[in-house]
C-alpha cells in the first residue's frame, strides 16, 4: 500500500494513497504500531487520495484509535474523498473520529 508518513511538529501525518483493504490493512497496523512505540501518539490520516476502503480497513481504524486513546493520543481524519466518506458515514465512524476537510486544520486541532 502506498502510505506516506511525515511529521508536522509533534503530529504525524499518514497519507493513504491507495486501496485500503484487507490485504493492505496489515501494513497500516504495523505502521500505527511503530508510531505508537516511538511515542508519536498524535496522528492525522489523510484520505485525500484513498481509492477504496473495505470493512477490514474500517475495523483496523477503530482498533488503532482505541489503542491510541488509551495512551492519551488520538487519530483524526482529514480530506475524506467521495470514495471514503459514504462508507465512514454508513458504519457510523463519524461518531468516533473527528473529521476535518483539510490536513492543516486537523494538525492544528491537536494544539
Amino acid at each position, binding site marked *: 500500500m502506498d502510505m506516506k508518513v511525515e511529521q508536522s511538529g509533534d503530529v504525524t501525518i499518514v497519507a493513504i494513497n491507495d486501496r485500503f483493504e484487507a490485504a493492505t490493512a496489515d501494513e497500516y497496523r504495523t505502521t500505527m504500531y511503530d508510531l505508537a512505540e516511538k511515542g508519536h501518539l498524535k496522528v492525522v490520516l489523510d484520505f485525500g487520495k484513498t481509492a477504496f476502503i*473495505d*470493512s477490514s480497513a*474500517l*475495523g483496523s481504524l*477503530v*482498533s488503532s484509535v482505541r489503542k491510541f486513546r488509551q495512551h492519551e493520543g488520538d487519530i483524526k481524519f482529514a480530506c475524506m474523498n467521495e470514495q471514503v*466518506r*459514504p*462508507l*465512514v*458515514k*454508513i*458504519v*457510523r*465512524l*463519524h*461518531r468516533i473520529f*473527528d*473529521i*476535518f*476537510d*483539510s490536513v492543516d*486544520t486537523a494538525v492544528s*486541532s491537536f494544539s
Partner: protein
Amino acid sequence: MTGNSLSLVAQQKIEEWRPMKALIVMDEARCGWLRGVIQNNHPGMMPFCNKPLLEYLLDFSILCGCEQLRFVMDEPGDEIEDYFDNGSKWGISISYASSRASDTLEDILEKNSTFCDEPTLIIDGFCFIGYSKNEDYDSLSDHRPEEPQLRCGSGQMLIHQHGEPLRVLHGLAESRLEVLPLEAIGDCYDISMHILDSTSGEYVLPGYNNEAGVFIGRNVTISKSTTITKPVMLGNNVQLQENTVIGPGAIIGSNVIVDTGTSIEKSIIINNSYVGTELKIKKKIIHSTVAISAETGTSIRFVDDHLLSGLKQCAPRKMPRLIVHWVLACLFFVSGIIPALLFQLLLKKRETHTILRHNGKSLSIASLQLSSNSLVEQLARIFLVDKVMLLPHVLSGRLDLVGNKPFPATPDGEKQYADFNNYLPGIFSFSESQSIEEGDFQEEIAERYFSANRRFWGDLQVIIKTFTTRW
C-alpha cells in the same frame, strides 16, 4: 471623500460580506425529539406542505446568493443525500459532512474550514426560516442592531467571515424574515397550516397550482364522488376513493391512499400512508400507523391495518436473489433435515427467541444454541445443524438465506433496527462468516458494510466461508 466614493466603499463592504456559501448544521440534540414522534425519517426531511424542511433552507440560501451549500449532521440520513444529491437540480453545489455529537459550532467551522473560507451563511439548529421568494436578501449580512436577531430557542442564523467573530444576523425592516422554533409537533403543524392558509405564495411549493389554495401532484386519482374544499394540497401518487371529503386545510403527502367515506380536515397525512374507510380526521397528523393530535401532541399507534397503515417499502428484496436463495435453501433442507433431526434428538437444546424481520415485525424462531463443549455439539456446528433448523423460515419467505445477523425483538433491538438501513436478516450472516466475535464492535461495522455492498456473489461467498470456518 465624495458621496459617490462613500457609496462605493459601502457597496464593496456589502459585497465582501455577501455570503457565497451556506452551511446548514442540524444536530441530533435539537432535532432528535421528532424521531420519537415520526419514525423512519431524518428530522430534516420532515415535510412542510409536502416539501422537506431542508429544501426550504436550501431555497433560502439560494435567495441569499449562495452558490455552494454543505449539510453538516451528527446523525446523517441516507435519504438526505438521496434527495439532494449534488444539488444540480437546484443549480447549487451541495456537499455533505459529518460531525460528532459533542462538537460545538466553532468545532464544526474548524472541521469545515476549507469550505468556510469565504463569507458563509450558517443556519444552525432545528428551525424553520420564514421568508419570501419575492423579497431581496442581498443586504442580509449588514449589521442592523435595531432589528431583532434571527434566532429562536432551537436555532439561529449567523454569518461567518474568516478572521472575524461569528455574528448572529438581524432581521430586515418590513420583511417577513424570521426564524421559527421547531420544538414540538404542534410547531410543525402550525407552520404547515399557516403556509397552506396564508403564505403559500411566498414559497416554491410542489404540485400543480392553477388555482389559489389548490396544489395537486402527479398521478393523482380522484373519485367522482370526492368533495374537495380548498385550501388543499395533494402530493404525488395519491388515491382519493369514493365519497371522501378532503379539506379545508388538508395536506396529503405522496403515495397516500384515502379510502372510502373518510373525511380529512385541517390535517396532515404524511407520505406513504393508508387511511382506512369511514374515518373522520380533524386536526391530526397521520404517519403510517400513528395518529398525532396537533393540539396536544399525543400520539396513538393503530394496530389495525384497516384503519391506518404504512405503505412504505422496506429494504428491497430483489426477485432473482430471492429465487436463488430459495433454491439453495431447498437443497440444504433436503440434504440436511434428517441429520439435523437426529442431532436435535441427541442434543435437546432448542430455545425460542424473538427476532425482528426486515419489515420490523417480530418473528419467533426456535433454534439450537450450540457451543463447542461436547463432540456432538461440535459435529452439529460443523454440519450447520443450527442453520438447517431455520431453513423453513427461508422457504416461507420470512428470512433470507444470507443477510444481517437478526436483531432481537427488544427495545434495544428496535433502536438498532431504526438506525440500520437496508436491514435484511438472514440465517447466514456476514459477520459470522468473517469469524468476528459476537458483540465486538467490528460486528456492527461488518454488518453495516455488508448491507451497503450486498452482491449476489458475495452472498455465495458468505455461505462458503461459513462452511469453511466451521470446518
